């Protein structure tokens, strides 16, 4: 069929739509709502997705935690107590015994988490943890004021402390510079040397990857000082960074093997990796997005059913007109093309208006919520193409019926 002829039939279709303006607008509305739904669901899930992965990445995707599995001791071992990790183990890893490990830091803490600290006459419960300077590198912490621990702080067991942003706010007061101030814990006195930048942990907490406490409400001291306070050489947890995300499992295997060998197989170890949380988060979010998108695409299909409904009614109402057209020389193809074009024009208009209005809405929402929204353009373009496909599919059956009408019978219709 010639292009010029298709254009002529197209104008017949457009005129027919214009002559039934109210009905045309209502069927456009169905597709319009479908596209808006896909855009809304897609944009919300994509934005949440990015939000979550930004949070996860802020903890370093190569991060590993290894600790003794207390609830399942080796049944053949006589040794029951101890953390299963010692300073000598740490030294071995620091020397490079585990090639997949890039960096390692010890973590020492009380088993009952929260401790009472004093500043001047203010008291507050905070979490105390003994670490070294590498800890803040691995956990991607930044300092708003002050500095990190130095080697001599660790080696000489200096009473220095790095505090979280929440401690700064509640114990010391937001408007005071805490660096150089001393805070008290029982009889011990610590000089604050640094304050950490606030970190987000909303998502990790929501999937149970973080304990109930606020990560920003912590005080860090040199682990050597903490060990002295506890009178032990135990390390409770190793914070490890693997050389790459791909090497995560190798790093775990190498460290666990080393720990078991050096501790004569007395203990079993457990580990968490940021990569596994990442995978978990990905699965959860993908499922949620999929559900939402399925629902949105269903509304697009409902819009298509609306078009089919209207086109079928239109064919019945215009039976006589179809008879006239056929009598004066319209072929089955001409009639079929006209009705399919009517459906496609409706769905394309609905899709285009949906895209346009959806885009404007996303900009408005971005300004109002002050959140960078990320409309997933691939999905939105796909939805637009689907809407045109829906138009084609829903126009096809009514068009076929129209094309098959017998001219004599159609002319007799009133």
């Amino acid at each position: 069929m010639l292009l010029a002829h298709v254009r002529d039939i197209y104008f017949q279709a457009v005129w027919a739509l214009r002559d039934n303006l109210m009905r045309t607008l209502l069927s456009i509305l169905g597709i319009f709502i479908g596209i808006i739904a896909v855009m809304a669901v897609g944009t919300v899930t994509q934005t949440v997705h990015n939000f979550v992965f930004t949070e996860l990445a802020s903890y370093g995707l190569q991060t590993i935690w290894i600790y003794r599995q207390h609830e399942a001791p080796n049944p053949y071992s006589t040794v029951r107590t101890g953390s299963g990790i010692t300073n000598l183990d740490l030294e071995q890893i620091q020397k490079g015994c585990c090639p997949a490990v890039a960096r390692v830091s010890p973590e020492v803490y009380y088993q009952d988490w929260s401790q009472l600290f004093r500043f001047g006459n203010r008291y507050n419960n905070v979490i105390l943890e003994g670490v070294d300077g590498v800890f803040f590198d691995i956990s991607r912490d930044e300092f708003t004021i002050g500095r990190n621990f130095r080697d001599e702080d660790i080696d000489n067991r200096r009473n220095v402390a790095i505090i979280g942003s929440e401690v700064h706010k509640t114990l010391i007061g937001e408007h005071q510079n805490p660096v150089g101030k001393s805070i008290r814990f029982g009889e011990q006195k610590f000089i604050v040397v640094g304050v950490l930048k606030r970190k987000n942990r909303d998502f990790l907490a929501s999937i149970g990857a973080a304990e109930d406490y606020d990560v920003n409400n912590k005080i860090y001291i040199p682990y050597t000082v903490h060990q002295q306070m506890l009178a032990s050489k135990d390390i409770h947890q190793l914070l490890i960074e693997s050389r790459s995300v791909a090497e995560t499992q190798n790093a775990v295997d190498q460290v666990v093997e080393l720990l078991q060998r050096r501790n004569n197989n007395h203990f079993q170890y457990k580990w968490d990796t940021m990569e596994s949380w990442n995978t978990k988060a990905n699965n959860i979010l993908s499922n949620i997005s999929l559900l939402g998108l399925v629902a949105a695409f269903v509304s697009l299909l409902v819009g298509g059913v609306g078009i089919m409904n209207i086109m079928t009614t239109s064919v019945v109402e215009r039976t006589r007109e179809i008879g006239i057209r056929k009598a004066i020389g319209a072929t089955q193809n001409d009639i079929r093309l006209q009705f399919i074009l009517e459906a496609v024009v409706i769905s394309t208009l609905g899709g285009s208006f949906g895209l346009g209005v959806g885009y404007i809405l996303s900009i408005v929402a971005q300004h109002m919520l002050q959140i960078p929204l990320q409309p997933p353009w691939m999905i939105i373009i796909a939805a637009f193409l689907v809407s045109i496909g829906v138009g084609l599919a829903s126009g096809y059956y009514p068009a076929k019926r129209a094309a098959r009408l017998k001219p004599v019978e159609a002319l007799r219709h009133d």
Partner: protein
Amino acid sequence: MIELINVSKAYGSDELSVPVLKDVCLSIPKGDFIAIMGPSGSGKSTLLNIIGCLDSLDAGVYQLGRQRVDLLDEDELTQLRLRHMGFVFQMFNLIPRFNALRNVELPMIYAGMQPQQRIQKAVAALSRVGLQDRLNHIPAKLSGGQQQRVAIARALVNDPDIIIADEPTGSLDTKTGHEIMKLFQTLNRHGKTIVMVTHEDNIAAYAQRVAHMRDGVITDIVRH
């Protein structure tokens, strides 16, 4: 030019089928103007629809020029209508939302003509039937006679050999009916073959020949 040999047609399903045409034979030479008359149910409309390639026949032969029409499929029949037939109906059968120009343009769209040419020919055809100043009127704004003139312009615009007219004056007053018939006579004089169904004797009188039908058979043909 039109040759019908033993044409039969029945409506309805196998057992309940009602014969409408029974072994009808009719020959219409080029340039003829034939009126078909008969009471309702005599089969005259069915015969006209078959001649106009709007309906199929159950048995018999329909020869149009060199073509065996009874062997053609629907799209081939459509092509025949497009190239060789012009239709004028009792109820005018114009598209209500289209103005006179658009209605007359329609057959040329299906014939694949260029837009420029279509408009020119549509204006010319409407001028020929005296409607040059009614181009932009929709059918509802035209009188019955004017609507029928638009329909005649539409029937003529693809330059057909045959005009098929089904009670063309049935919805018109007597005066307008005679005007339309004079237009038909002029067209006939210019070489158009006209096949017309009517039940009015004074309308049939404009034709060269009148065929009378009863119960699906042509009983006699009278030449004026």
